[in-house]
């Protein structure tokens, strides 16, 4: 230990909100990109699914397979980051007292949530760039208005964040880890990500359509594969999930 001169004379003051939020968002983004298990969920699995289902004749769809698979994989990417990754990370932050410790700093809870959202969006941007690049290399030719696709991704982000925070706020960290991965796998299977909904019995298709992942995959597909206008139905389903989960989470979330 050396004796560097440090002036401890009190000089309290909070940094500007933008600086606090930016610092926290950068730290959270870095944490995701550094975490091996999260990268598996957010990057490796989506890209492998894209290549596997895009190239191999596993599913039967009308039109090029890559045009069917890419919108689903983009939806999956949003789910993996906004829901699975965020739920697990937040659960462990609560468990290790990080949320509590941050609560003693000038960064407000609203500021923390904003930073988390920005970090999720930053990771999603990287995912969309990587997945689109691989898809283009595999011959993807999207149609439709990209603005509508971005709007859907944003609504999906909010809905899945709400779901993730709801789960992380009430379950123990280990339970969140298990449940978030399980939900990811189940929704990957039944949400029209790579397996067409038409492969499921007609009786369950109606229910499946109400899932947030299905709303996002069908919405994305109708825009990017079919060139449809703004998909109002899926968008409303996503916004309903967002409103319900965020309202519930704000009431049930335990910070420590």
């Amino acid at each position, binding site marked *: *230990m*050396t*004796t*560097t001169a*440090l*002036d*401890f*004379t*009190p*000089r*309290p*003051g*909070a*940094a500007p909100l933008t*600086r*606090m939020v930016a*610092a*926290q968002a950068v*730290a959270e983004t*870095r*944490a995701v990109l*550094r*975490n091996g298990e999260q990268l598996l969920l957010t990057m490796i699995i989506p890209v492998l699914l894209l290549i596997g289902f895009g190239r191999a004749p596993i599913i039967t769809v009308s039109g090029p397979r890559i045009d069917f698979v890419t919108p689903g994989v983009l939806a999956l990417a949003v789910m993996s980051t906004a829901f699975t990754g965020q739920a697990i990370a937040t659960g*462990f*932050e609560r468990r*290790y*007292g*990080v949320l*509590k*410790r941050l*609560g*003693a*700093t*000038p*960064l*407000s809870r609203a500021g923390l949530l904003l930073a988390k959202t920005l970090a999720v969006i930053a990771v999603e941007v990287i995912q969309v760039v990587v997945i689109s690049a691989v898809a283009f290399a595999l011959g993807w030719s999207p149609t439709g208005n990209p603005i509508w696709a971005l709007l859907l991704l944003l609504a999906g982000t909010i809905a899945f964040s709400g779901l993730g925070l709801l789960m992380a706020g009430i379950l123990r960290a280990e339970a969140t880890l298990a449940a978030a991965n399980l939900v990811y796998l189940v929704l990957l299977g039944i949400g029209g990500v790579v397996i067409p909904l038409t492969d499921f019995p007609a009786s369950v298709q109606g229910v499946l359509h109400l899932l947030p992942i299905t709303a996002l995959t069908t919405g994305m597909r109708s825009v990017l594969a079919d060139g449809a206008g703004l998909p109002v139905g899926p968008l409303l389903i996503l916004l309903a999930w967002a409103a319900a989960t965020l309202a519930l989470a704000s009431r049930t979330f335990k910070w*420590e």
Partner: protein
Amino acid sequence: MDSPAVEVSDLLKRYGRTTAVDGLTLRCARGRVTAILGPNGAGKTSTIEICEGFRPPDGGTVEVLGMSPGDPALKPRIGVMPQSGGVPLTMRGGEWLRLVSRFYAHPLDPDALMERLGLSEHARTPFRRLSGGQQQRLSLAAAVVGRPELVFLDEPTAGLDPQARHACWDLVGELRGAGVSVVLTTHHMDEAEKLSDHVVIIDHGRVVAEGTPAQLTGAERQLRFRARPGLNLDEVLAALPPGSTAKESPAGHYIVEGHIDPSLLATVTAWCAAEGVTTEDLSIERRTLEDVFLELTGRELR
């Protein structure tokens, strides 16, 4: 006149049917070091966490720097070191301190602070790979990096090796010198005795004694010695002036209290000679804070 650093009146905190804090009243002066001492479960952490704004009280009033503990305007003015954790496991030590420093308007240089606490070599080590003592020091650094007026340190030296403990003590001394108010909890009597201007001993959620270390230990001195266990103290007591006491606690450790003067010392050593006892570590000392503490809170384990 400034409001005190912390003013707690009739504080009440219950968890289910357990009463953790039971009508506690204390005041911590500005620019001073206040140590809160107490056995496990005495209500130290509950009290400090209410002051930090982490949990609401069930009764009583708490003012920190003249403000309500939950007030957002208070956050930049206080620094907090929790008993453990509070840092993401995968985050590197240097990153955490830099991040926390970004929340304040006029922070200390995180690198200089890391160096000061002997953490420079571990700046790139993830939190979970730091030793317990290194984690504690990082937590301490994060509590002071924002240049607060008041810091709460919950068992700051738990798990520290002697060097790190002294580094922590030096830092607390320096904070005090710079006019920072410090409120800390501890189990270490020597720590409270050495560091603090004011000691508050709490037990069962209440204050059982408070004062400066000197006030608490009193002016009275003791004669202490070690010898074989089981000596019959009645004989020596009969020879001592009235009002003297003698006890064996723990076995083989003898304490004589009363008016300690050369004749008392002679009486005791003469008795030892008659008994054929050679004493070890014979000394005349002030009571320690530990004696006071054990007297007030009892010896049973909790």
